[in-house]
């Protein structure tokens, strides 16, 4: 699918630019948003591809999860099928991620946040692996023939994985950042929470060093979350796209499509391998973001000095 999409966009008459193609498949469509919206306080709220994908993922997660839960609750004490699977995931998140970090007292307060993090990030990561829009591009090429000015055509461009955009991951990390403050304030009171950030009982000159370090640490946590998730998601996609690009690069280099066709099996095998690896990365990164959020929240609830 990637191959076809790339072919549709760039594989024609002119030379193939792998870098541009890859970026086109990952980056957001800030320059050509799907729906233009006016700027508020100099901030562009236009519905770009990634904003659209945020909606899409959120609606998908909400629909699926709510549907399963409603069915699950109707089933009574012995669940089957999807309800069983969801129960397993929820119990796993609650009992291995939330509970050990925030403690029994706060489990029900923070489990919904952590569960939403996990469901949202995992779904967003996973959707990035499904070439929906490349398929739609192909269909457009052969069936729909939508013009370049239509919203549908603009929808087809840009990256699918919102979590590969560090603006999005920064937004999510900001949620964690504030959740940490809320958790500390809820557990110890607002002022006590800030007092807890530095260990008590040192001479005042120590605090001149300690306070900036703690503030830095406070900011580094969400920054690390932001970068880890976005970079991991971007990296895998670039690898897959680069491997697929080999087909067109070979075609261009040897001036014959047979070179591209010849290298295609290698590209496909490698792409499949990396995709399988990506399946693991997708799960692991959702887990890591979720776990670290829980750990950070737990750290301010159980202050160790």
């Amino acid at each position, binding site marked *: 699918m990637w191959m076809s999409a790339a072919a549709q966009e760039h594989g024609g008459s002119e030379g193939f630019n792998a870098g541009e193609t890859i*970026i086109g498949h*990952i*980056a*957001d469509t*800030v320059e050509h948003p799907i729906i233009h919206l006016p700027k508020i306080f100099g*901030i*562009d*709220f*236009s519905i*770009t591809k*990634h*904003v659209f994908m*945020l*909606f899409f993922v*959120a609606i998908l*997660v*909400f629909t699926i*999860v*709510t549907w399963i*839960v409603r069915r*699950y*609750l109707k089933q009574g*004490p012995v669940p089957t099928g999807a309800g069983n699977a*969801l*129960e397993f995931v*929820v*119990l796993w998140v*609650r009992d291995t991620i939330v509970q050990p970090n925030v403690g029994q007292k706060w489990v*029900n307060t923070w*489990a*919904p*946040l952590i*569960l*939403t993090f996990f*469901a*949202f990030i995992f779904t967003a990561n996973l959707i990035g692996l499904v070439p929906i829009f490349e398929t739609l591009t192909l269909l457009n090429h052969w069936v729909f023939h939508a013009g370049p000015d239509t919203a549908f055509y603009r929808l087809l461009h840009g990256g699918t994985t*919102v979590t590969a*955009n*560090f*603006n*999005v*991951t*920064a*937004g*999510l990390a*900001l*949620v964690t950042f504030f959740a940490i403050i809320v958790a500390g304030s809820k557990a110890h009171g607002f002022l006590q929470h800030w007092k807890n950030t530095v260990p008590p009982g040192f001479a005042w000159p120590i605090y001149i060093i300690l306070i900036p370090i703690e503030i830095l640490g406070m900011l580094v946590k969400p920054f690390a979350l932001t970068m880890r998730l976005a970079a991991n998601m*971007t990296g895998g996609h670039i690898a897959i796209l680069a491997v697929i690009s080999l087909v067109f690069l070979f075609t261009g280099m040897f001036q014959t499509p047979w070179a591209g066709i010849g290298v295609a099996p290698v590209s496909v095998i490698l792409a499949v391998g990396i995709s399988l690896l990506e399946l693991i990365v997708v799960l692991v990164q959702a887990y890591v973001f979720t776990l670290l959020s829980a750990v950070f929240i737990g750290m301010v609830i159980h202050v160790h000095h």
Partner: protein
Amino acid sequence: MDNPLVQVNPGLAIWAIVVFLVLLFLLRKFAWGPLLRFLEAREEKISKSLDDARKAQEELERLNRESADILRKAHAEAEAIVSKSYAEAEKLREEMKQKARADADAIIRDAKSQIETETGKALRQIRSEIADMSVMIASKLIQRNFTKEDNSELIEETLKQIESGPRPN
């Protein structure tokens, strides 16, 4: 920066936060909340059921122990009753035997003494009757006029008769 991969886009970040928070709110209300409550209730129910089962088991064991105890006691009691009644029966038998023997002895003794009394009485009567008869004979003899020879012959005969019959005393 030219690279669109590292373009700062605060609008997108704000969208991400808004979308996420809305999703969080909705899921919390419609999915996670009810689900977590359900799971908790179920866990409570399971642990309570297990607890109840354990309690029932303990109760059952206690009852078993008690019934075994009762049985054992009943056995012992029954045994005691049986052995006691054996002993009592033996005692009773012995007593009856002794009483019977004593009764028999008493009857025999009575009979003996009665026999003796009767014998004595009979002898005394016989003796008095003999004496009467002797007197009667003697008077009859005296009333007749015996000769000397007749007299002596009669005396002789009478003496012989007395000597040959059973002697009194």
